[in-house]
């Protein structure tokens, strides 16, 4: 009887500590470095995966490389230095943001050129068109259709 009571007492004393609801610790020892590492890993490619970032990959090599990056950052290396470290070993392939080099000028400037070129072409075409159309007077049939369309416009406040 006494033993039972003692046992219960012990349980009651220990219980609150055993069921300790604590704030979950973050993965990795240093949360600041961890965050930096994950942010950088989002821009790096997993080399053994089918198009996944280093951050999201479950592959062994990816885990190894993340650990490598963690250690480099702990040693005080900057993001740029870490990237250079990886590129020295794996080439530009490991970067999801292609570096700006002569081989990637077309890639980085192409869209802008395309846009400017397209807008210029549009402008020139419109000018030419206006000139050509101004040179042809409307015939009766076209004039009838033109008037019909114009009145259609009237019904539609823009």
């Amino acid at each position, binding site marked *: 009887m006494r033993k039972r009571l003692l046992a219960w007492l012990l349980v009651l004393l220990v219980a609150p500590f055993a069921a300790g609801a604590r704030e979950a610790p973050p993965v990795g020892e240093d949360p600041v470095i961890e965050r930096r590492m994950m942010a950088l890993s989002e821009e790096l490619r997993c*080399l053994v995966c089918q198009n996944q970032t280093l951050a999201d990959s479950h592959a062994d*090599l990816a885990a190894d490389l993340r650990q490598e990056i963690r250690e480099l950052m702990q040693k005080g290396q900057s993001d740029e230095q870490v990237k250079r470290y990886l590129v*020295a*070993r794996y080439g530009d*392939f490991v970067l999801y943001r292609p570096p700006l080099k002569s081989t990637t000028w077309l890639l980085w400037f192409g869209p802008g050129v395309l846009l400017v070129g397209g807008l210029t072409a549009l402008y020139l075409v419109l000018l030419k068109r206006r000139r050509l159309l101004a040179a042809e007077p409307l015939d009766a049939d076209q004039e009838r259709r033109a008037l019909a369309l114009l009145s259609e416009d009237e019904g539609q406040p823009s």
Partner: protein
Amino acid sequence: MRYLRFLIPLAAFAVLTGFLMKGLWMDPHTVPSPLIDKPAPAFRLTQVADAGKSIGRDDMLGKVWLLNVWASWCVSCREEHPVLVEFAKTGVVPIYGLDYKDTRDEALKWLDRLGNPYQASLFDPDGRVGIDYGVYGVPETYVIDKTGTIRYKQIGPITPEILHDRIVPLLRKLNA
């Protein structure tokens, strides 16, 4: 003359098709090594067979040698191993192994079972040296020359054709 610009889309498409055709025969997965024609990264590792003995990169200067990255858990390595064993018998070039992310026990058992073409195998359990060499998938093989510069990297298993067409001619050139 002005009709020519209507041909531009067709011409651009033809160029695109050319590239896509070429692309069908290429492998988007292989990562070529940026270390070709650069000095082999330094290392000092213990041997698989003998934890007491170690080998460093500079120990290898003065000779042309092959560094073959393998592991007992690697399935494709089993394909290439007989080729290496045969090749080692010819004595053309010393072959050293880099046992990547493995355990000594498993590695030795594997070599026992399948043959040992290596002068020695370096033990790289955490894969650090592998990372330095840009290893991303086993098996991989490096040809390193007398000055310690990497001259060629083979990604994937070595076949007799690759030996015959690429590696042996290169070795001949480097040894000359």
